[in-house]
């Protein structure tokens, strides 16, 4: 697929590939999404606002330049901004593909990293020379201020111009929680939300700390997604309960929503309001308990997003999807086109029990 290289969240020509329950594929303009929804459907989207998670700075012990990308956090509490899981790159910036970025200098627990107005201390390495838990010094408000002033959104080599924070905040962005944009929500305009309301389609949100999509390091990429905290509001838990009662579809907007809801369902059996930490990977062996359909970007084989699609449809359907995405000129990545995939009917679902 072609990489979408302009940071436009809702280009008028955006496409939508629809994968029906029986595996049939249809091509739609994405602007017609509401036409494909049925009265009673519940859309659940991730309202996490994207953090300026890329911080340029200096490894104090060696004096060498580094880029720190925040990639994980223990919880979504506003006060919990002291400690982050971070991927540390050597010198350079986003114009170099992550695959080609040099390793950082050797980093050890106790090392300090100066990041503009912020200073972080390395707490521990996570079994990899560029993955570490770091802790910022200073009061909570000072850390937020430092991130706001010095941080930039994580950039992509396939997007020509530097991304500003407004490029990566979806229209429904709320709590500041995502390390990279929960980009499926880029497709939602407020006009669409309005049209959904008129049609009797409900919209609810949860907040999931969407992590980084790729580090360029095969060992680290194999560990993605990292553990991601989420919060499900009471309204959303109730809306899901009501949707299930009336046998309506629960449609996740974004893979992070699938991850949060299915994690919550496995922990609790049903969706309750509250917070959690999504630790499981979703793949072919996952039995989806809550989510009936997914609106997402177009994903390529080998990514964790693609693996997640295998929980919805059999391998053969995904191969059909790949062929169609390629032959019809669909664009991929954050600002690319979308798919709407409905969970296959039981008979054609791949076998297998649940993951853990």
């Amino acid at each position, binding site marked *: 697929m072609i990489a979408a290289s302009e940071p436009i969240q809702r280009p008028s020509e955006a496409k939508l590939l629809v994968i029906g329950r029986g595996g049939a594929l249809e091509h739609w303009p994405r602007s017609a999404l509401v036409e494909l929804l049925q009265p009673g459907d519940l859309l659940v989207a991730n309202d996490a606002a994207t953090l300026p998670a890329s911080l340029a700075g200096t490894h104090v012990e060696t004096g060498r330049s580094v880029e720190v990308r925040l990639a994980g956090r223990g919880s979504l509490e*506003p006060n919990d901004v002291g400690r982050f899981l971070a991927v540390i790159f050597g010198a350079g910036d986003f114009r170099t593909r992550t695959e080609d970025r040099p390793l950082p200098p050797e980093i050890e627990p106790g090392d300090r990293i100066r990041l503009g107005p912020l200073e972080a201390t390395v707490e521990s390495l996570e079994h990899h020379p560029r993955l570490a838990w770091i802790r910022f010094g200073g009061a909570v408000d000072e850390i*937020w*201020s430092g991130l*706001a002033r010095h941080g930039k959104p994580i950039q992509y080599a396939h997007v020509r111009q530097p991304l500003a924070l407004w490029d990566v*905040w*979806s*229209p429904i962005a*709320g709590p500041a929680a995502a390390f990279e944009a929960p980009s499926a929500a880029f497709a939602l305009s407020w006009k669409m939300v309005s049209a959904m309301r008129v049609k009797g389609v409900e919209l609810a949100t949860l907040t999931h700390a969407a992590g980084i999509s790729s580090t360029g390091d095969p060992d680290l990429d194999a560990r993605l997604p990292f553990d991601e905290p989420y919060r499900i509001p009471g*309204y959303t838990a109730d809306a899901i309960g009501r949707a299930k009662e009336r046998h309506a579809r629960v449609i996740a907007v974004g893979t992070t929503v699938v991850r949060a809801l299915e994690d919550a369902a496995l922990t609790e059996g049903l969706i309750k309001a509250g917070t959690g930490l999504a630790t499981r990977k979703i793949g072919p062996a996952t039995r989806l308990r809550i989510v009936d359909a997914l609106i997402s970007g177009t994903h390529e084989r080998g990514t964790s997003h693609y693996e997640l699609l295998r929980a919805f449809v059999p391998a053969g359907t995904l191969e059909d999807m790949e062929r169609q995405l390629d032959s019809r000129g669909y664009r991929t990545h954050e600002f690319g086109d979308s798919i709407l995939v409905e969970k296959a009917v039981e008979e054609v679902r791949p076998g297998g029990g649940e993951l853990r």
Partner: protein
Amino acid sequence: MTWRVAITGGTAGLGLALVREFLERGADVAFVARGSDGVVRVAQEFPRAHGIIGDVSKKEDIHRIALQILGALGGVDVLINNASDLGPTPLQLLADTECEDFERALVTNVLGPFRLTKALLGSLAAQARENGGAVVLNVSSDAAVTPYAGWGAYGASKAALHHLSRIWDQEGAGSGVRWLSVDPGDMDTALHAAAVPDADRSALKRPEVAARELADAVAAALEDAGVVALEDAGGAALEDAGGATLEDAVTRAGQGGPQETRRGRRHEENDRGK
């Protein structure tokens, strides 16, 4: 529940009074202002409030401000766009107004509130889904509807803000987010002194009185939407300092304009010189 309130222009005049008023009512408060000295001073005076340095007239600052508001508070139930620019000081006839002064008034009083509201709308709408309602209060002026000579830049910008509030309230009707456009009256503030240096200050409304009226208006809108009220520590009695009642002072942005209220009269009484 504890309301989460963000206030721009929060280190002086009405904004500072609003910070104090909402804190007294038990809300979590984040305030924004341009000057770091002022932000530090107010944050020291009110340790529970979160001070944010930022300029709402700068496009580059808006998302940084929004990030810090969302970071500090976790979400927003109430946004008060209070920061205002008077335009040229001393006031000028339109024919003598430099376009840069007019631009600064427009970007501070219209585009800034528009951008900040847009950046926080996802959170406001989520709060409204969860709790029943959320409020954006845009601080208006009688100059938004009455064409006072000498107040061209300010008046035109406030007229635009008032209309913006009304349209947004129409469009947002289904979301649970309400837009209020409120004229706080002529207050004894630095902005008023810059505009009317020889005004009789004793005839002007005290900012804390206006702040209480605005907070009451926000409370009424939230309660109307079914949001559980804060405990009102300040007492609900409305002081009639400016000759206005609450009904006069508040216009639900979607329901009629300030034409239908008595605003403007006070200006004629107090500041005939305008």
